[in-house]
């Protein structure tokens, strides 16, 4: 079993009367990619900034690579790469100068050109930061995070505001880092991103963890709820009608056993020469699962 790079136990944080984190616990193994997923205001940034050492916790235990991040220990900073939610670098330096400046702070370094190539900015190496697009600045952020060849990377919504192409590029970069054996902890509110990148997902809503697991297992949880939809104005067989939700000619059917239910439905239709118009069978996407879970959490969360 791999060593845990990040351990969080009963982490609590309040801003005045608002409890941003109400006792969350999770672990990230060395070399694992874990995503913290949740709606805006769920406590994602608070969590990641406590791990990075920018914010103090009110309670609980936190360890990153064996260090308490609140101590601001340099031994930890030496091994940690950070991408903050907003870019913050001097606008008058060039890409290459910025990467070099940050590389110098770390005892272990990756090559400047290598880092710039990794994020696909080699054409912009001598361009000043002020002339980069938003997406390019974000990639520079990732380059800075890699400059010290970190063991653990914290990425706070690394692709927010990216166009689809840039997003795909960034994902490839992050995937590549995972391939190098880096431990990566990222926050996101995009399901596609998490599904593509993460080994494991921790879903947080209103300051509490509401679900945790691999993307596959989270989807599996809700397998019960396969949805069958079609349009039919006439009568339906008894077995179908009992479970269906009919709105005009639109019929919706939620089932735990789609094989059986579809067989009943289609065999009935074929025998009676009925065409089921617009027949759709949908398994819930991770997006649906996530919305379902966070909605439940937000309605019951106040009393949880």
């Amino acid at each position, binding site marked *: 079993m791999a060593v845990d790079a990040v351990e969080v136990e009963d982490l609590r944080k309040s801003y005045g009367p608002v409890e941003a984190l109400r006792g969350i616990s999770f672990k990230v193994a060395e070399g694992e990619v874990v995503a913290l997923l949740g709606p805006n205001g769920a406590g994602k940034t608070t969590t990641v900034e406590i791990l*990075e*050492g*920018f914010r103090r916790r009110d309670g609980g235990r936190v360890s990153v690579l064996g260090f308490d991040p609140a101590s601001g220990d*340099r031994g930890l*900073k*030496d091994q*940690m790469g*950070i991408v*903050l939610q*907003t*870019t*913050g*670098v*001097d*606008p*008058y*330096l060039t890409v290459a*100068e910025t990467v070099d*400046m*940050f590389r*110098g*702070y*770390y*005892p272990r370094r990756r090559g400047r050109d290598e880092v710039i190539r990794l994020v696909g900015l080699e054409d912009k190496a001598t361009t*000043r930061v002020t002339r980069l697009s938003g997406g390019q600045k974000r990639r520079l952020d990732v380059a*800075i995070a890699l400059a*010290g060849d970190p063991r653990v990377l914290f990425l706070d919504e690394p692709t927010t505001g990216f166009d689809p192409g840039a997003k795909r590029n960034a994902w490839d970069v992050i995937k590549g880092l995972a391939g190098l054996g880096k431990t990566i902890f990222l926050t996101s509110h995009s399901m596609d991103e998490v599904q593509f990148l993460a080994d494991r997902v921790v879903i947080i809503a209103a300051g509490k963890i509401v679900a945790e697991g691999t993307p596959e297992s989270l989807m599996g949880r809700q397998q019960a709820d396969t949805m069958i939809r079609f349009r039919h104005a006439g009568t339906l067989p008894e077995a179908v009608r009992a479970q269906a939700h009919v709105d005009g000619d639109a019929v919706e059917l939620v089932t735990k056993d789609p094989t059986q239910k579809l067989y009943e439905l289609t065999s009935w239709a074929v025998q009676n020469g009925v065409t089921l118009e617009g027949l759709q069978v949908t398994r819930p996407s991770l997006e649906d699962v996530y919305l379902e879970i966070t909605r439940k959490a937000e309605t019951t969360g106040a009393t949880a």
Partner: protein
Amino acid sequence: MRDLELAFRQVWYINKAFVRNPAALFFTLIFPLMFLVIFTVIFGNGHIQVAPGTTVRVATFYVPAIAAFSVINACYTNIAISLSASRDLGALKRIHGSPLPVWAYMFARIAHAVAMAIVLVVVCAAFGALFYGATLPTSTLPAFALTLVVGAAVFSALGVAVTAVIPNADAAPAVVNGTILPLLFISNVFIPLENPSGWIDVVGKIFPVRHFADAMIGSFFQVSGSGLHANDLYVMLAWGIGGLLFGIRTFRWEPRT
């Protein structure tokens, strides 16, 4: 050892960004020299007694006075405004998340400002020597240099400290100029004070600007003795230490929102 190297390396990067920023260049380097020319042209023809038995043309008076202003401008004003800008940008937060020691970063900011201040003082002195025959002090040069260094350090500390009350980068020039401009007018810098009236004298002497100006002007024109104005330096140091302690307690690496 490596950290000291990092600190000096940081000065180099700060300077690189500084020389590429036209506004910073203008306000730090050109602005004080503009004041020197304008003041000497407008008010330069009168005479003023700068030390017991020493009367000089006002144009000459402005050489050390604007040298003092240059130091205040390069250290207090420049540090406060540029730190606030970096803070708003998130650049300070980014640096704070890296292993660069806090002291190394602050040292670099201050060392760069002090270097700019020294350059400006040399330019002012050369200007005075060239156009007004205001010869550089030789016997009092150590006192003049010490005053310069103490002043640069004190106003740098105050520049860091004042960022605590600057809400955001847009407000920085207002807060900085609002605190320093009135003092520059009543502290023997912009306007020579031969016999300051009571309240101006009292108020001016509470703050470090007047003491700095008096010490700079005094050591520049004094013909005998060391020229050291120790009492003025003590008041400045008190302000500097106060600013330093306040700065350490209140300094913020993240935007104040």
